[in-house]
């Protein structure tokens, strides 16, 4: 039964922890979202459950977590719509050969490295309810993802959005995310059809019909929202409600088909009209509640499922080290090498590799899906969460080292002068 007092208390504690740790992380030049992710981990068995198990059990009893999960899932549905909305993969065409090559290699190289790691980890951290193909593909997808929203925030906070590296990174990350989610949808279908009562062909054919409907039917009606926005300078509450209902309907369709709620929300965002004013308005409308209230709940729920360093002994730390090294080598190394081979200067290529290595929040979303469908074990989940934290944390200091702020400012000013001239 719902204990409302406990749920409200949980939300309050999570929000305070997220804001405080987020503020502390900002003090060390990390994005706020990095601190919020860490706050979630600190509230789970990795810290609170370890140092104060009594308090942890009283505050987050297992029976109460269903409600927290439900709220965080609703938040994620809206958040994935926002991510889809912010994406504009057509921008890639503007950045030429370097962007096309880097975005492809930054998916394929870590994917391959992930598969290679799976050869070692499958007999140690998986079980026979999961096929090697499912495990390896999931590892590949999880290694190749880039956190588009976190990346955008890091670039914005450092004033890098209009730099050469920044625009290239955003374009590559957009392509990475779209590709990554398509691959993940395939993996979810692959894993779920082996357990589902529904025949595989229904899921596959249904998914194709759904995507076709979204791209060729629903998409044709969406510019009407943009026209209304242009006419009135805002969207009425009724129109915003219609957009929310469309997001929920799309999410429900993909869940019913056996893919996942989040894919539907993401696709709805991706097919929305992409004019800058319209997307900025919608982002502003949806982001505040999602980012301030609901995402910290997701981080906390993720943290409650993560057991960094609890159980497993030295072997788990060894596996974690392998995963972190492989993830960095595949993503950072692959992107950097591809950009360099496409003629990008070394400093820019290295910066691009560092930025593409940011996994952050999107990695946590994917890992939670993996744990939900049973393709990764709880220990593998914790290792990958640690990897996501490390790769996100290292972005800002490494970027400062490779591309100091004074050089960046000079480059941005130079570009601005050239555009004025």
């Amino acid at each position: 039964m719902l204990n409302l007092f406990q749920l409200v208390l949980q939300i309050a504690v999570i929000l305070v922890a997220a804001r405080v740790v987020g503020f502390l992380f900002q003090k060390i030049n990390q994005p706020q979202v990095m601190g919020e992710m860490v706050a979630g981990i600190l509230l789970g068995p990795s810290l609170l459950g370890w140092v104060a198990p009594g308090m942890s059990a009283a505050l987050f009893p297992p029976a109460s977590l269903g409600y927290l999960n439900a709220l965080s899932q609703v938040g994620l549905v809206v958040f994935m719509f926002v991510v889809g909305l912010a994406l504009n993969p057509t921008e890639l065409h503007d950045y030429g050969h370097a962007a096309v090559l880097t975005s492809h290699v930054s998916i394929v190289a870590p994917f391959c490295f992930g598969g290679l790691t799976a050869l070692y980890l499958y007999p140690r951290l998986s079980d026979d309810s999961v096929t090697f193909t499912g495990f390896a593909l999931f590892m590949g997808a999880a290694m190749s993802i880039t956190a588009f929203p976190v990346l955008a925030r890091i670039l914005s906070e450092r004033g890098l959005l209009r730099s050469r590296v920044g625009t290239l990174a955003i374009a590559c990350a957009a392509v990475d995310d779209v590709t990554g989610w398509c691959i993940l949808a395939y993996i979810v279908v692959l894993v779920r059809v082996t357990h589902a009562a529904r025949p595989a062909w229904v899921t596959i054919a249904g998914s194709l019909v759904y995507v076709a409907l979204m791209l060729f039917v629903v998409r044709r009606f969406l510019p009407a929202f943009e026209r209304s926005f242009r006419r009135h300078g805002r969207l009425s509450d009724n129109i915003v409600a219609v957009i929310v209902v469309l997001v929920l309907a799309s999410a429900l369709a993909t869940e019913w088909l056996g893919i996942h709620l989040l894919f539907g929300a993401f696709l709805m965002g991706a097919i929305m009209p992409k004019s800058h004013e319209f997307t900025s308005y919608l982002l502003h409308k949806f982001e505040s509640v999602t980012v301030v209230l609901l995402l910290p709940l997701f981080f906390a729920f993720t943290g409650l499922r993560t057991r960094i360093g609890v159980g497993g002994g030295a072997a788990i730390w060894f596996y974690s080290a392998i995963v972190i090294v492989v993830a960095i080598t595949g993503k950072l190394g692959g992107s950097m090498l591809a950009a360099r081979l496409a003629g990008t200067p070394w400093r820019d290529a290295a910066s691009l590799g560092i930025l593409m290595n940011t996994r952050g929040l999107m990695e946590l979303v994917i890992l939670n899906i993996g744990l939900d469908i049973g393709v990764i074990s709880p220990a593998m989940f914790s290792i990958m969460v640690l990897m996501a934290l490390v790769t996100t944390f290292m972005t800002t200091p490494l970027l400062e080292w490779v591309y100091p702020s004074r050089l960046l400012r000079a480059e941005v000013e130079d570009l601005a002068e050239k555009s004025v001239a």
Partner: protein
Amino acid sequence: MLLVGLPVLGLFGILEVGRSLAAPLSIGGEWTLEFDPAANCGGPARLRQPALNISQSGTSALIALNDGRATTIDASIDGSTVAAKSLTATITGKQGQRVLEGKMDFDGCAPVAFRAVRQAPAKKRGE
């Protein structure tokens, strides 16, 4: 072409090699327990069904007893044997119809024989 094509080919090779790998037997999920009725011990009566909730990560497992005290036991899986401080069992049956048979220790009793049947494979582990 080379930068993308070669890793893709490599991935196919990896998937082919990986097919021959064997992972530990799956025991994750909720289990109902039946104890030897001849056992003269009060311990089993404290357990409510499903009596075991197993969270598995490869060859390690965390067994949570549904005894109202949230007792957990660390276990290891070696082939078809599950071994823990107060439990030893053998895994039998195919994936999806798995059975655990063995002995469990309770305070003040001789080890009690049990047979456990999995309710459903662990589709949502970690929940």
